[in-house]
């Protein structure tokens, strides 16, 4: 019988620990499909960060490093500068990349570091049980904004893709979403393009993926996907912010 659908080779045969309805699994799969289709898994070194995906090396089959919180772009820089012929990517959440790791991501982007960043934006800290992230929407309830995120007190959400796109260093920055099949297909193309940019030695590439956290949002999986469409995309518009 012909096999018409199977796990990508770049994903190990391990069950994800992610919550039901969480889109980390989809994001992992898309990255793995890109590694397969570009046939680069064997020379890829992935950098896991701190957050729910701290152990993504249990799922990705390529060589991996687990980085300190927020430092993945610096670790990736050290890897890429010592092994320029390898493919290097980081996989980071919004607490990791947009709060504690702000300096590292901005400077990796500004240097045009030839790495690929997969940035999961779910507007919340997942692993530590739902605290406010820099990406948390105004009026969003979290465990540290129990009365909602109030601009006067907590400030405003950070649109990371737009912030990085003003720099000269990045070669490619796109924001995509994982809320339905049509958008997942687009996200896949974005990820593949980002890795292709790296292969072509064009410099820093990043794909921001609007993602769910049903557990900490207090929504069921379907409601969570709808929240991306109805609440997140108005704040975080989809599209290509930088390409050269």
């Amino acid at each position: 019988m012909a096999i018409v659908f199977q796990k990508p080779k770049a994903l190990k045969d391990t069950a994800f620990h992610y919550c039901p309805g969480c889109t980390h699994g989809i994001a992992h799969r898309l990255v793995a499909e890109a590694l397969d289709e570009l046939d680069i898994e064997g020379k890829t070194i992935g950098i896991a960060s701190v957050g729910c995906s701290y152990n993504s090396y249990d799922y990705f089959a390529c060589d991996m490093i687990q980085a300190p919180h927020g430092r993945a772009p610096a670790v990736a820089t050290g890897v890429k500068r010592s092994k320029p012929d390898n493919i290097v990517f980081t996989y980071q959440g919004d607490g990791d990349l947009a709060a504690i790791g702000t300096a590292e991501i901005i400077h990796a982007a500004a240097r045009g570091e030839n790495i690929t960043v997969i940035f999961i934006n779910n507007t919340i800290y997942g692993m530590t049980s739902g605290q406010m992230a820099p990406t948390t929407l105004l009026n969003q309830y979290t465990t540290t904004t129990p009365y909602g995120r109030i601009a006067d007190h907590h400030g405003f959400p950070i649109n990371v893709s737009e912030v990085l796109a003003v720099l000269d260093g990045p070669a490619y920055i796109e924001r995509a979403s994982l809320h339905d099949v049509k958008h997942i297909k687009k996200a896949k193309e974005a990820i593949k393009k980002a890795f292709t940019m790296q292969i072509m030695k064009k410099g820093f590439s990043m794909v921001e993926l609007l993602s769910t956290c049903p557990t900490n949002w207090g929504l069921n999986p379907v409601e969570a996907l709808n929240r991306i469409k109805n609440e997140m995309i108005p704040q975080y518009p989809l599209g290509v912010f930088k390409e050269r």
Partner: protein
Amino acid sequence: MGQRMLMKGNEAIAEAAIRAGCIHYFGYPITPQTEIAHYMAKKLPKVNGVFLQAESEVAAINMVYGAGSTGTRVMTSSSSPGISLKQEGLSYLAGAQVPAVVVNIVRAGPGLGGIQPSQSDYFQSCKGGGHGDYRQIVLAPSSVQELYELTVEAFNLSDKYRIVTIIQGDGILGQMMEVVEFRDTEPIERPETPWAVTGHENKRAQNVITSIHLNPAVLEQWNRNLQEKYNLIKEKETRYELYNTDDSDIIIVAYGTVARIAKSVIEKAKEEGFNVGLLRPITLWPFPQEAFEKVIDRTKAFITVEMSAGQMLEDVKLSVNGRRPVYFHGRMGGMVPERDDILKLIRDIYGKSA
């Protein structure tokens, strides 16, 4: 005989690293060690290496973590406040067993402190400035020649044990100029790195560099393995110098710059009829306890002299373990111990006054 050059201590470190095969350097500017970065910035591009000025000390040590994870010889250097910022990374390097060489040209603290020489980072380097049960090899050179030789050695030790080695100098050692005699070829020992992340090329199993083990039983075993390694290093790699200790009544314990001052104290004391020796730890960790066993029966007292409030003093007391009195003379804030002050203490101990 090798090439002889008049060099600053900081430059000797940088030159030694390149000679040891370290052509990847990540750092951030801070006085009084910046000449290391200047030297690397100039030389590394010429040997197909990489000098990269990081956005922070935090980023620099994480770049070191990344490069070290690929099995590449890599170095960073800084001074006390910068080394404080690197502690998170150093803990990860220890936990994930990534080899690297880190230079700390110590300046006085706490806080921003000053830029004058100090030895007040002994606790931080030797007792673990970061979180967790970990150790790093700490080498304490006492001359520019030794800065060169011990830097080469540091890379060998780091690779051999998959551990961070700290070169612990101070502002005087980093800034002073002395003649260095370079070897024609360096004694480089580089074991295979089957653990390194280099891309598996579909030829071997996945390699992972990590320090997280959420299962406490697994993490305890991981720690036991680390402790076993540390014990092996204690057994094999402890280094020290004994100077004039054969029949000395009093032994000064001092390292780095202060050990040089101690030698001039010893000469002067001899003129006054006092027989004083020097025990100079070269490895601050592992601390040379065995050196004390060699001399304790034939000495009456120890004097620890440091540019700190008394940090190594604790290890000296542990090593002497109450068998002899341990006196202390320390200066802080960038002030340097003076020969005559130490002599005065010696006279007092001998029960005489000048």
